């Protein structure tokens, strides 16, 4: 069997070292990316929760103004809005889960 020249061996070692380093870097960056995306998901979940309540309360306030009630609609729709916010959060998180599963 023909012997591998010394310079080719060294080059091979260098390539292997660079490959290993690259894999480590990739691993670290994917972990960092994971943290950022978790933060983004948490922020979005918070916004979804609040926006449901705000939209519900605004809708209730408008209906109270239109039908000249004191606060019945405001109260009812704020509760509906809070539930809608929770529903939105659960749907959003389910969607994110599905996406993560697909990536795996």
């Amino acid at each position: 069997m023909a012997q591998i020249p010394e310079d080719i061996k060294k080059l091979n070692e260098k390539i292997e070292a660079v490959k290993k380093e690259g894999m480590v870097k990739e691993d670290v960056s994917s972990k960092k990316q994971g943290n950022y995306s978790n933060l983004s998901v948490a922020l979005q979940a918070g916004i979804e929760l609040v926006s449901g309540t705000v939209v519900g309360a605004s809708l209730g306030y408008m209906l109270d103004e239109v039908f000249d009630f004191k606060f019945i609609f405001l109260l009812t729709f704020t509760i509906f809005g809070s539930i809608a916010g929770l529903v939105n959060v659960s749907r959003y998180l389910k969607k994110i889960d599905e996406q993560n599963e697909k990536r795996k």
Partner: protein
Amino acid sequence: MSNPMEQFEIKRLLPLDINGYDISFTNSALCMIISAVTVIVVFAFCLRKRTLVPGVAQCIPESAYEFIYRLITENIGKEGLKYFSFIFTLFLFIVTGNLLGLFPYSFTFTSHIAAVGSLSILALVINIFVGIKNKKWGYLRTFFPKGIPLAIAPLIIPIEIISLLSKPFSLTIRLVANMTVGHIMLKSIAGFVVALGLLGGEIPLIFAGLIIAFEIFIGILQAYIYTILSCIYLSDAIHSH
């Protein structure tokens, strides 16, 4: 130090009043036009010499195209490509608006609920049309999914309606809050540079520089998030049962 909220003031450039409706041409409208024109000019310039092997200039629009293409296929699927032009325009308009707002004497229209809210409502209307087009009357099932007892319809229907209406709200708030906070912070720190002068003004100047770099990143990231969420909502309209 000047008021950091001053930068968000809408100024009338061409006052116009029709039947009591104020439709003046404002600094916000001007920046929106500049943003749209910038996108057209950059794309026209970069794509003036179209070759099979792209040059550096051609890579910019091609990368943007591929990025949005991937975003749509990952989040909606191949059937979402019908709405590619809308999502691509939305992304480019917002990202350009965010970045142009960082220029001195410019105006960040993406920090205004009216501007971003209109885009979000447009996205919601398109979603509803897509849903109706795909499912006809079956779209109404969105508000009352199959298998739910009729007795709880008065509870489920308002919750589902609020859930649908809160989508543009959450889209808007996220982008507007990020843009507003970033610009207030930038202006406040820039104010310290002037206030401190040569004695210590260098430190806030470095911070201001760092915040500008951070704001560029945030501007692109928020445009991406806005687009991805629009895709998710569109996907709901296409795929929901």
